[in-house]
């Protein structure tokens, strides 16, 4: 069993063996070229032409012939490894995971990840539409601006006037007097109602 002793495939050893077998020195190259075809030859997957070429080589190369025999022996040994059976729960677990898979969503579903978000988004759109539909603020004409400017001094001093103590000490007009004054105004200006 020289092949087993060498441990690794060695074209040099193959050439030596070929020489011993009375072959030409070309066997070295030939063994190297055969390397990739040995497996195909062992498992019967070589094409007809390649198979014939291999058999021609094997008939003159003792090392390659030995290697083929040993590879066949390895192949038989690999058959001894027993198969295992799937556990009883295997299918159940696969189906449970299939059931847990999220259902495929439509393209539109991307826009509605949740009802709350959808509601908030629609309210925002409505609010924007409402703001957009409001009439623009009326612009002031020159006389109105002038009036505001005149009153500006009073407005600026509003804080002082509102807390001005002497004003609070003035007597408050009676409610009955107000009504009488109003009636009086109505009787003196009848044309205002016309």
């Amino acid at each position, binding site marked *: *069993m020289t*092949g*087993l002793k060498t*441990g*690794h*495939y060695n074209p040099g050893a193959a050439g030596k063996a070929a020489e011993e077998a009375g072959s030409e020195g070309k066997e070295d190259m030939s063994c190297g070229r055969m*390397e*990739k*075809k*040995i*497996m*195909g030859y*062992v*498992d019967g*997957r070589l094409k007809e032409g390649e198979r014939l070429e291999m058999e021609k080589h094997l008939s003159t190369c003792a090392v390659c012939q030995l*290697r083929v*025999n*040993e*590879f066949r*022996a*390895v*192949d*038989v*040994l*690999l058959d*001894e*490894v*027993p*198969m*295992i*059976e*799937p*556990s009883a729960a*295997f*299918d159940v*677990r*696969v189906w449970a*995971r*299939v059931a847990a*898979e999220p259902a*495929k969503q439509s393209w539109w579903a991307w826009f509605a990840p949740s009802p709350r978000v959808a509601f908030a988004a629609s309210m925002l759109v409505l609010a924007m539409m409402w703001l957009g539909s409001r009439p623009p603020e009326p612009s002031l004409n020159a006389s109105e601006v002038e009036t505001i400017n005149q009153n500006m001094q009073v407005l600026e001093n509003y804080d002082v006037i509102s807390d001005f103590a002497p004003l609070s000490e003035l007597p408050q007009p009676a409610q009955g007097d107000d009504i009488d004054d109003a009636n009086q105004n109505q009787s003196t200006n009848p044309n205002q109602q016309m």
Partner: protein
Amino acid sequence: MARSDVQLMLDVKAGDEQSFALLLHRYRSPLINFLYRMVRNREQAEDLAQEVFIRVYRAREDYVPSAKFTTWLFRIATNLALNSVRDNRYQRMEISLDAPVTTDAEDGDEKTMDVAEKHPNIEQHLIEEARRKMIRQAIEKLPEKQRAAVLLHKYQELDYGEISKILECSESALKSLLFRAYETLRVELAPLVAQQGK
């Protein structure tokens, strides 16, 4: 007439879950065995096989039969197995050398509790068990990619074209991988190979 894998997958794509059940039934055992021989742990192999089927199910909508179904299926499985083996290797490196030695999972899976009951010839049984263990260990010692190549070639009987697509290498590189793997196995199993030759 049985529907082809591709036809079943197209039916799954159309919403037929019964076709998925048929694919599951057809490939659960080959997948689990392939993954078991890759990761050497039954529970992990089943978890990975589940993951393979779930990925197939998730991809149903986008499935296009551009390659053989088995190529696609075992490509997913091989990638998951290679990642798992690498992760396990890093985990093992972190385990203290003082950790107690436990028997490997595979021995527990395949041994029966009462050997004598099922095997009247215990000696013969032990010899067979030792042979199987030696073969398993020889396979386990192979580098991951060589191991995957041998398993896909030997046990799944995929052709070179399929395996090279699964392993993302050329056919020529695959043949070299297989040759080197068988060379290693030949050396590791030398005593058994010698017996075989007698």
